[in-house]
């Protein structure tokens, strides 16, 4: 009977199981390693997949010996500022491009979309210099402003495709009722686009939380470092001495995105693919 089961039936199941193991293995491994005592870790890697005890001392040491809490706070502040500013700039811009259709709005859209093709590296030195010139290197703005600039194209792209779906009649009804351009945008278009806004917020959050290049280049002061940069320094600093704390720090850094992902998994997958596929 078993032999008669068709290849077409069990091959996909086998593949799915193999891929599942590969995709979750690194996270499972690091979580499990972070929960083991230094003595167990010293015995070698073989028993690291299933911790023999739940030991939280690594986490205590990670928080005590490094400004991990501070990094968490910095990452949060930077994410909030960046997302807020991106939405504040992108929503009206996309609304104007898609609904107000002023002369040249197509050109403006294509100009923004050009940004999707530009690698961030080309802007590093000029931004580094201008931040110094403006005296805001080593402030939250030093990563917020560059990130907003580079996030705008995707946000505007997603907002324009969303606004396209809102019928003009709805907005015109508001303006016939006497609402001005700003009023129509603020009290009709913005509430309608809440779904698009959540998608953009979620997409941006994952991206900004994980961002490394800008933060590593523009923030040299220890007090301002974000989690990815802090983690990188922590590992090169502590990694050779305290492996347990290193694993714990890695887990702490990925926990916020994973927690968000557990709640909003479908939306995150959809927004990341929508943000990725822009034709």
């Amino acid at each position, binding site marked *: 009977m078993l032999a008669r089961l068709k290849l077409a039936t069990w091959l996909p199941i086998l593949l799915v199981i193999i891929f599942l193991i590969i995709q979750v293995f690194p996270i499972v491994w*690091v979580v499990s390693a972070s929960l083991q005592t230094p003595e167990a870790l010293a015995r070698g890697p073989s028993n690291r997949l299933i911790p023999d005890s739940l030991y939280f001392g690594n986490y205590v040491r990670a928080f005590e010996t490094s400004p991990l809490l501070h990094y968490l706070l910095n990452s949060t502040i930077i994410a909030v500022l960046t997302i807020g500013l991106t939405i504040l700039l992108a929503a*009206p811009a996309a609304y104007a491009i898609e609904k107000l259709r002023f002369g040249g709005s197509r050109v403006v859209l294509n100009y923004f979309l050009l940004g999707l093709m530009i690698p961030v590296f080309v*802007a590093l030195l000029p931004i580094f210099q201008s931040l110094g010139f403006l005296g805001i290197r080593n402030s939250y703005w030093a990563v917020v402003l560059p990130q907003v600039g580079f996030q705008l194209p995707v946000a*505007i792209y997603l907002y324009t495709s969303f606004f396209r779906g809102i019928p003009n009649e709805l907005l*015109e009804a508001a*303006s016939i009722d006497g609402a001005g351009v700003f009023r129509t945008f603020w009290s009709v278009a913005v509430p309608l686009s809440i779904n698009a806004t959540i998608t953009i917020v979620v997409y941006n959050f994952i991206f900004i939380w994980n961002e490394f290049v800008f933060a590593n280049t523009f923030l040299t002061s220890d007090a301002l470092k974000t989690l990815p940069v802090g983690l990188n320094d922590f*590992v090169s600093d502590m990694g050779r001495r305290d492996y347990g704390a290193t694993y714990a720090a890695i887990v702490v850094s990925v926990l916020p995105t994973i927690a968000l992902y557990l709640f909003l998994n479908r939306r995150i997958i959809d927004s990341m693919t929508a943000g990725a596929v822009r034709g």
Partner: protein
Amino acid sequence: MRKNQLLGTPSWAGWLFVAPALIMFTAVVIIPIAWSFYLSLGAWNGLSKWRFTGGVNYLNMLDDTVFRQALVNNVFFSLVGSLIQLVIGMTMAVSLISIAKFRNIVRVAYFLPAVISSVAISQIFVQLLSADPEGFINGMLRSMGLGENTQPFLSNTSLTLLIVTTVDAYKFCAIYMAIFYSALVSLDQDVLAAAEMDGANRLQQLFLIRLPLIWATIAASVVLVVSGTLRGFDIPFVMTGGGPGTSSELVSTYMYKTLFRQSNFGYGSAIAIFLVIECLLIVAIIRKAFSATEKTG
């Protein structure tokens, strides 16, 4: 054009709405390109005065063995990385649509590496591949009786490029899985049912019907994956820093070091401009190739 415009909206209102975004985007993305180009035409280390040298920086790239090595590495990184992401992404998507249950939870689990930071992924793999203390992979090799293969993997210059390429592809392949999966599940079931009635087996259905039907999605993904790998930076930078030697150096990591470690601003800017042109050019070529196949095919 006119008929889409909302009733009675003055043109200045539109410009007012886009102006803040336009200014921000221009200041952060567009002006720096011009600025970098200007810097690339001179010699400057941040202390002395900027001195115009013309195209010397670009000519120097031709003779720079490290740059040439980085370029060769980058070709490998982009080509192999793109291939892994597309093939694995597609295999994941196809196997997912072939199972009846648990599709959503499997998809969510597949996607996990894509939401984790490159730094965390890199650090995890550095630990897994480590030799002192013995990391998981070396431990596995030893307990499987393959002890002669245990080694400090990230010190082996003939493996580092392959390792950073694979880890980078590993992080991003689930994005292509998700793209292909949603394209595959949105296919018209009638077409597939008709094919099945005509006696097409699973493999024939896949290669003769499903894949041709999602060809536009595949083409868009190729553009996406190639332009993504051309900008690869985080994972090689964190895992190996481009080393040992130049064994895993990419154009982007070399540019970063030239700018921020050697303070060679003119030459670094020239490499940055090279990267932009390379990205734009290769994406344009791929697009052209795909639109050509669409016309003939």
